[in-house]
C-alpha cells in the first residue's frame, strides 16, 4: 500500500528536493517555467510521501517508544561509527508533513511573487536545497547527521537572506545571521563532542537508553553542562535571547523565504532538536529550568519590542521570536506535546501571515512601513481575510488554531510555575495587542491616496487560502486524532481544554484587540475622530477620561517607552556584545600581523627565540637535569 511504500522509502522525502536542486540549479537556471514546475512537482511528491508516512505511523502504531529506524553506515572506521538514516516516529512524521506542506505552499506562492526576477531559477534551486536539508535534519538518526543538515540549513538560510546580494543591507543581514548562528552552533558541536566522549555514541536511540544509566551512576552535574552547550545551538537557530538578533534582520530576504525559513521551518529546528533530545533534557531539572526561563523571557522581550516596530515584516519577525520563546517555554516545563502542537499551528498561521504580508508588499512595492499603508481591505479582500485569520489565530481567539495550542502551553506552564505562567499570559496579551495593531493599521482606516494596491495573482492566493483553512481548523485535527497520545514524551499527557485558563487568555486577548482598536482603529490621533469617540462613549461618563488618559499614558510612556528602551538596548547592547565577540579576532589579528615586519632577521630572532624556549622547557623537564639542579648525583 502507499503508506507502506512511503514508510519504507521515507529517505526519498529529502532526496527528491535534493534532486530538484541539482536539476534546477545546474540545468534549468535560465528556464523559469521549467524550474518552477520541477521544484513544485518534487515538493508535491515529497508532501504526498510525507502524508503517507504520517498515515503509516498511525496505521502501523509506530509510537515514540518504538520508532521505525533505517540506517546505512556512513563512516564506519574503527573507533567511530556514524550512520546516516531515517528516524520515523510521530514527532518526525508530523514535522515532515509540516515542512513539506509549507515548502510546497511557498514554492507555489513564489511562482507569482518572484515572477520576472532575474534569479528565478536560482531562487527555486535554493528553496529546494533548503527543503532537502531541513527534511534531512528532521529524519536524522544521530547527532552527526543532525548537525550536518543543521549546518546545511544554515548555509541555505545565508544564501537566501543574501538573495538580493546587490543590496548592502541584505549582505550584512546574511553575514550577521551566519555568524550569530555559528556562535550557537559552536556550542552545539562542543556538546556533541562531549556526548561522544561520555557515551561513545551519538545515536539517538542508544543515547536514550544510556542516559538514565549514566545519571543513576554519575549524577547530573556534568550532563547539565553538556545539555546547556547543546542548547546553545537552538538558542542561535531558534532566535532565543540573546542570539535572536539575526532573525529580524533576516527579513531582508524575499518574503516567501521569510515565510518558509524564518517563520515556519528552519527556526523551529532548535525546538525540534530539544524535543528530539528530550531524553537528555528531561532528566536534568536545572537545564529544563534554564530553557523555560530563556523561553519565557524571549517571548515577553520580543513581544514588547514588536509594539513599536513600523516595518510589517519586522513586526512579524519579532512575533516569531516571541512564539519560538513560547515553544521553548513549553519544552522547559516538560510538555513536548504542547510545544509540538504550537509548533504545528504556528507554522500554519505564521506562514499564512508572512505570505499575506508578502501579498501586501507585492501590491504596494517599496513600502514597508505599516503607517504608510491603510485601508487595504477593499482592494485586497483575500489578503485581508488571510491576515485576519492569522491575527485571530496567533491571538488565541477560539476557534482558531492558535487558541488550542496556546491553551495547551498555558496549561502546562500553570502546572509548573506561577511566575512563568504570569509572563506567558502577559505575553499573550501583548501578542494580541500588537498583532491587532498591525491588522488595523494596514487594512482598516482610510486609503492613502498615492497607494495603488492590487490583489495578488492566483498562484499567490491559493497558498493563502490553503493555509488560511489550516489556520482555522488546525487546532481540531489533533483533537480528533488524540494528538497527545502520539506526539509526546513519556506517558500521554493531553488533557483537553482547561476552561479557566482558556477563558482567561481569551478574555485578555479580546481585551487587547479592543484596546488596539481603541488606540489605532478608532483614530485617536486626529482631533475630529477623537471628538466623535466622545459621543459614542458618552454613557461611560467621566471614567472614560480617566481610561483614555491612562491608555494614552500607557501607550506613550509604557508601551512606546518600554519598547523603545528595549529596542535601544537590543541595538546597542545585545548586538554590541555579539559584534564584539565577532570583532575580537579581527583586532587581535591586526596586532599579531604587525610582527610580520618583512625583515628576515626579525623572523629569525622569533624562530630562534621560540627554539630556545622549547629546548629549555624540554631540558628542564628531564629527570636527570632536575636531579643535578637539586644537588643530586647522577
Amino acid at each position, binding site marked *: 500500500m502507499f503508506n507502506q511504500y512511503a514508510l519504507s522509502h521515507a529517505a526519498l522525502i529529502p532526496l527528491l528536493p535534493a534532486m530538484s536542486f541539482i536539476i534546477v540549479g545546474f540545468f534549468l537556471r535560465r528556464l523559469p517555467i521549467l524550474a518552477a514546475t520541477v521544484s513544485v512537482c518534487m515538493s508535491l511528491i515529497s508532501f504526498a510521501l510525507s502524508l503517507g508516512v504520517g498515515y503509516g505511523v498511525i496505521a502501523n502504531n509506530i509510537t515514540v517508544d518504538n520508532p521505525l529506524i533505517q540506517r546505512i553506515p556512513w563512516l564506519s572506521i574503527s573507533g567511530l561509527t556514524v550512520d546516516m538514516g531515517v528516524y520515523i516516529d510521530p514527532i518526525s512524521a508530523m514535522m515532515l508533513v509540516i515542512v513539506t506542506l509549507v515548502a510546497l505552499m511557498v514554492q507555489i506562492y513564489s511562482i507569482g511573487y518572484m515572477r520576472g526576477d532575474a534569479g528565478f531559477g536560482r531562487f527555486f534551486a535554493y528553496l529546494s536545497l533548503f527543503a532537502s536539508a531541513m527534511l534531512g535534519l528532521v529524519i536524522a538518526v544521530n547527532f552527526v547527521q543532525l548537525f550536518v543538515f543543521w549546518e546545511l540549513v544554515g548555509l541555505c538560510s545565508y544564501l537566501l537572506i543574501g538573495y538580493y546580494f546587490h543590496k548592502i543591507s541584505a549582505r550584512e543581514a546574511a553575514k550577521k545571521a551566519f555568524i550569530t548562528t555559528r556562535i550557537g552552533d559552536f556550542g552545539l558541536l562542543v556538546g556533541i563532542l562531549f556526548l561522544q566522549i561520555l557515551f561513545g555514541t551519538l545515536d539517538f536511540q542508544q543515547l536514550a537508553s544510556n542516559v538514565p544509566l549514566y545519571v543513576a551512576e554519575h549524577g547530573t552535574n556534568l550532563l547539565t553542562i553538556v545539555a546547556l552547550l547543546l542548547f546553545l545551538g537552538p538558542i542561535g537557530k531558534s532566535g532565543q535571547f540573546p542570539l535572536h538578533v539575526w532573525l529580524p534582520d533576516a527579513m531582508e530576504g524575499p518574503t516567501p523565504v521569510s515565510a518558509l525559513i524564518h517563520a515556519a521551518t528552519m527556526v523551529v529546528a532548535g525546538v525540534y532538536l530539544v524535543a528530539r533530545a528530550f531524553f537528555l533534557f528531561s532528566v536534568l531539572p536545572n537545564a529544563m529550568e534554564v530553557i523555560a526561563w530563556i523561553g519565557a523571557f524571549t517571548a515577553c522581550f520580543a513581544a514588547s519590542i514588536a509594539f513599536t516596530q513600523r516595518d510589517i515584516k519586522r513586526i512579524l519577525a519579532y512575533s516569531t521570536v516571541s512564539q519560538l520563546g513560547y515553544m521553548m517555554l513549553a519544552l522547559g516545563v516538560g510538555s513536548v506535546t504542547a510545544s509540538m502542537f504550537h509548533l504545528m499551528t504556528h507554522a500554519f498561521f505564521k506562514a499564512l501571515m508572512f505570505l499575506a504580508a508578502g501579498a501586501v508588499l507585492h501590491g504596494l512595492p517599496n513600502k514597508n512601513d505599516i503607517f504608510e499603508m491603510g485601508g487595504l481591505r477593499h482592494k485586497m479582500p483575500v489578503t485581508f481575510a488571510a491576515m485576519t485569520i492569522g491575527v485571530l489565530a496567533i491571538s488565541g481567539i477560539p476557534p482558531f488554531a492558535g487558541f488550542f495550542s496556546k491553551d495547551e502551553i498555558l496549561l502546562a506552564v500553570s502546572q509548573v510555575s506561577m511566575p512563568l505562567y504570569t509572563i506567558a499570559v502577559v505575553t499573550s496579551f501583548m501578542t494580541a495587542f500588537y498583532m491587532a495593531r498591525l491588522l488595523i493599521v494596514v487594512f482598516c482606516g482610510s486609503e492613502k491616496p498615492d497607494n495603488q494596491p492590487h490583489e495578488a495573482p492566483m498562484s499567490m492566493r491559493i497558498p493563502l487560502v490553503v493555509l488560511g483553512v489550516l489556520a482555522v481548523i488546525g487546532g481540531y485535527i489533533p483533537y480528533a486524532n488524540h494528538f497527545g497520545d502520539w506526539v509526546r514524551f513519556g506517558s500521554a499527557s493531553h488533557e483537553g481544554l482547561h476552561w479557566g485558563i482558556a477563558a482567561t487568555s481569551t478574555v485578555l486577548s479580546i481585551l487587547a484587540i479592543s484596546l488596539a482598536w481603541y488606540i489605532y482603529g478608532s483614530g485617536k490621533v486626529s482631533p475630529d475622530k477623537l471628538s466623535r469617540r466622545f459621543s459614542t462613549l458618552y454613557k461611560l461618563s467621566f471614567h472614560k477620561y480617566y481610561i483614555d488618559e491612562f491608555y494614552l499614558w500607557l501607550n506613550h510612556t509604557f508601551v512606546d517607552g518600554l519598547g523603545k528602551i528595549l529596542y535601544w538596548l537590543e541595538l546597542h547592547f545585545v548586538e554590541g556584545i555579539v559584534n564584539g565577540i565577532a570583532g575580537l579576532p579581527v583586532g587581535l589579528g591586526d596586532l599579531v600581523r604587525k610582527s610580520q615586519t618583512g625583515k628576515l*632577521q626579525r623572523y629569525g*630572532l622569533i624562530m630562534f627565540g621560540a627554539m*630556545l624556549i622549547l*629546548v629549555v622547557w624540554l*631540558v628542564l623537564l628531564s629527570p*636527570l*637535569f632536575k636531579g643535578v639542579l637539586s644537588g643530586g648525583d647522577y
Partner: protein
Amino acid sequence: MNELIYTVAFYIFAAITVAAAFGVVTKSNLVHSALLLALCFIGVSGLYVLLQADFLAAVQILIYNGAIAIVFVLGTMLTRRSSRHGTNDTEVNIPSRVVTLVSGLFVVVTLGVIATTPWHYSSGVIVEDTPSLLAQLILTDYMVVMEAAAVLLLAAMIGAIVLAKGVEE
C-alpha cells in the same frame, strides 16, 4: 699519541676555531670575514684529525677551504663596491641585547646538557682505515642517500645556473 701533545693540540685547534668563528661574525670587512672563515675551517679539520677522522679532515680542507670559502670570496668580489670597509657590519636595527641573550642562553643550556648527560661511551675498536670503510658503507648501506645527494648536487647546479644567468633580454 702522547697525551700531553694531544691535549695541547686540542686547545690550539679549539682556540683557532672559536676565535676565527668569533672573528667571522664581528669583523666589519667581508674579505676579512671570509679569510677568517677559512681559518676556522682549518681549525675544525685539525679537530677532525684529533678525532681520528683523517678522511673527513681532508674533505673538510678540500671542500670547505677549496670550494666554499673561495665561493664566498668570489661572491664578495662580484658584488663589488668602491671600498671593502663596512661591507660586513653588524645590523644596527636589531635588538642586539636580545640576540646576545638568545645565543648566550643557548650555550649555557647546551653546556648544561653536555655536563648532565650520561654518555654511553663505546669501548669498541677504532677503525684505522676510515676511507675504505666509508667508501664501502656509502656504496652499500647508504646508497639511497648517496644517490639522493647526487640528485641534490645536480639540481643545485641547474638551479644556480638558472638563477645566476639572469633574464634573457
